């Protein structure tokens, strides 16, 4: 019972963090079809900028400045770099962002070194929200989750309930028609890309104070955010929320479970045979927890490329 509750709590907060990072990617991928390989780098950039700013002007200034700076960087990338390679197709756009990811990572190593930096939440936020099974549950984890939920609500309302949302969705579906109606589509795209980057920056600034801030954090999340976006569905905000929670819960539960294929085969009496084969058969679920998201992505890509809640196939 204790394991189940703690795992659920951790899984939900990790899932919400994943959602924070991938929300921007969902927006960009869904809107423009650009698979932004540099997205997790924007997340990392957010954490590092927040660290640098907060050490001079305090924690909250860092949280506010980081997403703005990262958003501006995103807009510059969309405005000046992506159009140059657009004529050569999606592959080149993807490659460009891939190169940018490499550059951002190396720049961060250049300025901040090849080791984790001491980016911490202020002491005022360092307390337990509630006690469960004798241990305190950090308030900051709840804060990360709350930011993610606010992010989702605001984005969702913005896209579905406002005029801006209509223009943005129109720019996605029928760019020529929207342009003919007098909307400046390049500017819309620039702002969407900037917003996506800013969201990643915000996620980095908020989460970086709790999780380690190091030059590998982009690489660690880099592929998993693709998993979220793909599993959730192309451009579906709700989908990526569901997928994030799913993956968060999966990974937090899998860590504590020693199930294996051999164990499953015990039920039909083939357990010993499976154990004699070894290899995949005796791998415990806890040791393959890192594999599950990729397997999930593979299955989704092959069975239903539109994703769980995506509309188009």
């Amino acid at each position: 019972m204790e394991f189940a509750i703690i795992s659920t709590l951790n899984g939900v907060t990790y899932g919400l963090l994943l959602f924070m990072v991938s929300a921007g990617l969902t927006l960009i991928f869904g809107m423009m079809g650009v698979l932004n390989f540099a997205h997790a780098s924007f997340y990392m950039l957010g954490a590092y900028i927040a660290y640098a700013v907060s050490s001079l002007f305090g924690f909250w200034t860092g949280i506010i400045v980081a997403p703005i700076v990262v958003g501006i960087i995103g807009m510059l990338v969309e405005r000046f770099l992506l159009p140059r390679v657009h004529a050569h197709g999606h592959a080149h756009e993807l490659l460009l962002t891939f190169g940018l990811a490499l550059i951002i990572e190396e720049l961060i190593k250049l300025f901040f070194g090849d080791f984790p930096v001491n980016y911490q939440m202020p002491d005022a936020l360092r307390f337990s929200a509630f006690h469960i099974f004798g241990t305190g549950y950090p308030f900051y984890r709840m804060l990360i989750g709350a930011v993610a939920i606010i992010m989702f609500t605001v984005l969702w309302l913005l896209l579905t309930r406002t005029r801006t949302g209509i223009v943005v969705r129109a720019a996605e579906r029928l760019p020529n028609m929207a342009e003919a109606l007098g909307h400046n589509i390049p500017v819309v795209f620039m702002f969407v890309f900037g917003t996506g980057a800013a969201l990643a920056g915000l996620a980095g600034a908020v989460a970086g104070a709790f999780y380690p801030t190091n030059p590998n954090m982009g690489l660690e999340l880099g592929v998993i955010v693709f998993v979220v976006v793909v599993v959730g569905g192309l451009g579906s905000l709700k989908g990526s929320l569901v997928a994030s929670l799913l993956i968060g819960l999966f990974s937090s539960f899998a860590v504590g479970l020693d199930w294996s294929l051999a164990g499953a085969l015990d039920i039909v009496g083939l357990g010993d045979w499976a154990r004699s084969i070894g290899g995949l058969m005796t791998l415990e679920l806890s040791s393959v927890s890192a594999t599950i998201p990729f397997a999930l992505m593979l299955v989704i890509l092959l069975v239903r490329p539109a994703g769980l809640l995506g509309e188009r196939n």
Partner: protein
Amino acid sequence: MTSMRNIFIIAVILALLVAIPPFLGLGWQNALVNVLIASLFALAFNLLIGQAGLLSFGHAAYFGVGAFATLHLMLAIEDGLVFPTPLLPLAGALAGLVVGLIAGYFSTMRSGVYFALVTLAIAELFHSLAPHLEGIFGGEAGVSSMRMPWTGFTFGSILEVYYLTLAWVVVCGLGLWAYTRTPFGRLTLALRDNEQRVRFLGYNAHSAKVIVFAVSAMVSGVAGALQAISYETTNYSLFASGVSAQVVLQTFVGGSTVFFGPVIGATIFTLFSFLVSDLTRSWVFYQGLIFVLIMLYAPTGIGGVVYHHLRHRHQIDWSKMAAPYGVAIFGGLLIAAGTVFLTETVGILFGQEYAMARQTADMGFPAFELFGVAWQPAGILTWLLPAIALAGGCFILTRARRQIDHLWAQAGKNGDETANSATDATIAGGAK
């Protein structure tokens, strides 16, 4: 005529590759082995993106599988199996082919960005599973073995390994090249240009793509096998996304539209890491910068640019062209110098050693040494010099570029065809 000259050029290069290495030091011989392996890997990778238009982000999987299969065969030979050492890469080829057939069957069900994502997922599966499957991949420690002597060869020296690698790379490279000349090679190009039409012509596009994928994976497996033979050990880090990333970088910097373009990229980057990684910590940064600049300004890569010039060599008045080209190169060098200076300065000022030097200097800003000269961190010259180099270089390069574009446009008017690099690039893949 052209083909005769091509054969002559290839023969000269081969003769050099055979004749020179015995006179080089061990470090260089080792570097050349790595260049050859990287070249073959990039050629195999480019079969997919350059010929079939499929961008794989997980080619480390087939490279790694080839390496592990070879090491297991080497272990079996140590245990008494009779097998000629020079044929070891066959194990890599077989493993690459089998895994490539399976992975290719699934990944080619999708196209475009989704294809890239499937290949990425497959490679990540390997990477995350490998350390847990000790029987096959040896856990975290990996698998190690020794090269066994065979008839007169001991394979104890790097030079022998070099010649073995060279032989395999030449055979596989020429084989891949010959493949592009076959009817099936033509069909591969058609898959890239218009898949729908291929289907209407009555071909099974999916199985054709699976075959291309499997061939590419097979040759990647050979490259992995050669690496396993040269290092005699490997572990699961061979499946890391960085390995897949390197081959993408090398191929596109070299030029994916020209058959031997990837070799240029692989050679440049491998030698770059051999020569520069000792000099500076930031060599990966320069590598990324080179890649992004090439993507932005020369999407067909170095090979594409060279090929473009070779094609139009009779249309251009080189006497007029030489001056602006020289100026452009000068501008580029200025920019490079400015960038390197700034990067290294930042690297030093934000480095740990400088932090320690500041502590001994009572938190002041002591001078630092770069290129054998002492610079003041707050000095005007320290920042003015790179700024002038960057601004001046940009100015010169932009002007020269405009002039060059103008001359090319004129050459295009005089010649039979327009000097359009994009159409050139498409032709380059097929007509070569």
